[in-house]
């Protein structure tokens, strides 16, 4: 494979339930580089359950800078259910100079029609931050019995996107359940992108492109929780044209991160 890849869906630190190859930053960066990834948008697993989100984001920024091998781009977590979350957003933008933020409604316990969430989208859009919204992290059938989080209802997103001018939204781990009409409605509502880590089915990328234009489909691996080879091989499984491949592998993700602060 020639052209470099922008992976919009990786995480640093520890998955709470398992040690993973690549849960040390330098190791993950090396794995990504070996897979042909030139830039990876990194959230932190700590952002799921830690209440000290400010600490999580400061560590994330430092890890990417010091051990990211020049390819990790930090995306800080913001939890609009915590008091003074606006300060976390400000630090992500002004102190850490991040390109975007990560949201985890399933783990932070709010719905996508919640006024605080809508306000967060607006403030992020004003700051030109890319918003990455993770709809899931793992198959709900596999969750630890004492750590079950509810599925996120994505339906309110179409209206939320329409009401937030300038919003650039990337849906992470969304495509296992969200397909067809329901997906098209959200993507058409504004500047909304999806990534392929949880996309399934024989020839799945080809079928996705019948529902969503290639300009809205990004490469996401969900590494290190998923084998990075999964997303890589999906690009081979479907017959894709050069332009489609370039669009998914890097073109639109690069355009997104370049337009950020």
């Amino acid at each position: 494979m020639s052209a470099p890849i922008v992976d919009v869906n990786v995480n640093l630190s520890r998955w709470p339930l398992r040690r993973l190859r690549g849960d040390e930053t330098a190791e993950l960066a090396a794995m990504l580089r070996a897979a042909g990834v030139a830039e990876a948008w990194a959230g932190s697993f700590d952002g799921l359950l830690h209440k000290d989100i400010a600490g999580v984001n400061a560590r994330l920024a430092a890890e990417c800078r010091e051990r990211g091998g020049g390819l990790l781009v930090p995306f800080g977590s913001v939890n609009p259910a915590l008091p003074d979350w606006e300060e976390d957003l400000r630090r992500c933008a002004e102190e850490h100079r991040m390109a975007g933020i990560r949201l985890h409604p399933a783990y932070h316990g709010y719905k996508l029609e919640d006024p605080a969430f809508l306000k967060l989208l607006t403030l992020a859009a004003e700051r030109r931050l890319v918003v990455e919204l993770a709809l899931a992290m793992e198959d709900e059938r596999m969750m630890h019995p004492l750590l079950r989080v509810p599925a996120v209802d994505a339906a309110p997103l179409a209206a939320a996107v329409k009401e937030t001018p300038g919003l650039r939204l990337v849906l992470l781990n969304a495509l296992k359940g969200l397909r067809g009409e329901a997906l098209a409605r959200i993507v058409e509502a504004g500047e909304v992108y999806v990534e392929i880590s949880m996309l399934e089915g024989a020839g799945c990328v080809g079928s996705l492109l019948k529902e969503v234009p290639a300009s809205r489909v990004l490469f996401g691996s969900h590494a290190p929780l998923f084998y990075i080879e999964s997303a890589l091989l999906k690009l081979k499984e479907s017959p894709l044209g050069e332009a489609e491949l370039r669009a998914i592998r890097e073109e639109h993700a690069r355009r997104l991160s370049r337009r950020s602060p």
Partner: protein
Amino acid sequence: MEVWDLHCHLSGVPGRTPDERMARLIEHADRMGIARLCVFMGMEWSYDPSPEDLRRQNDDVLQALSHWHHRAFGFAYVSPRHLEASLDELKRCVRDGPMVGVKLWVAQRCSDRSVDPIVERAAELKALVFQHTWLKVTGNLPGESTPMDLADLAARHPGAPIVCGHTGGDWEVGVRAGRAHRSVSVDLGGGDPTAGFTEMAVRELGADRVVFGSDAGGRSFASQLAKVLGAAIPEDAKRRILSENLKGLLGPILSAKGVRL
């Protein structure tokens, strides 16, 4: 490296007929370098199939196989809730037909003795027994086997090679559940490409008891192959998992049928 896929279906790919769907599966398999596919269950599924359902679904598979005997094998779909019909299907599809295995799904848990005559007959015919299993924190279907049910089945039939479908879904539990039973192999297919899955299966069971299956068309060949190609295991272990183990499991019935590879 040669790849044989233990676990494919005629579902999850477009096509109005078994032939059309089979052609689509083969197309994607070709792109992923998969040489042989095991196919089971028909165009339309039901949790508790009637005898007519079973026959119709096996007919779909026989039709799908008819142009692809050099690439695909069939497993007869049966149900302990219809013993006579199931034994008749074994006669029709395996003894007198081209099929080489037996598929048990979610009609009846395999801890129930009603499945015993089917497994005994399968063993006589040297047909490989594939039992779906899943341990769901969200709750199993009434007739859906857990990997612990499968261990119970294996203990009752120590001489019959049995495949634990999906490694129990919740594979960290599934691997342990079948570990003590040497006749149990695990199928890697059908779950997310969660990193560490294959490494743990190889560590606990040995590479000889781990078999690549995709569960395509519902799953992507790519995401499932990634579990093997992305695993930190020796090349030799990958070779066994990707084809040699399945060749070994099917060896007795293939040579009894005079199938030359």
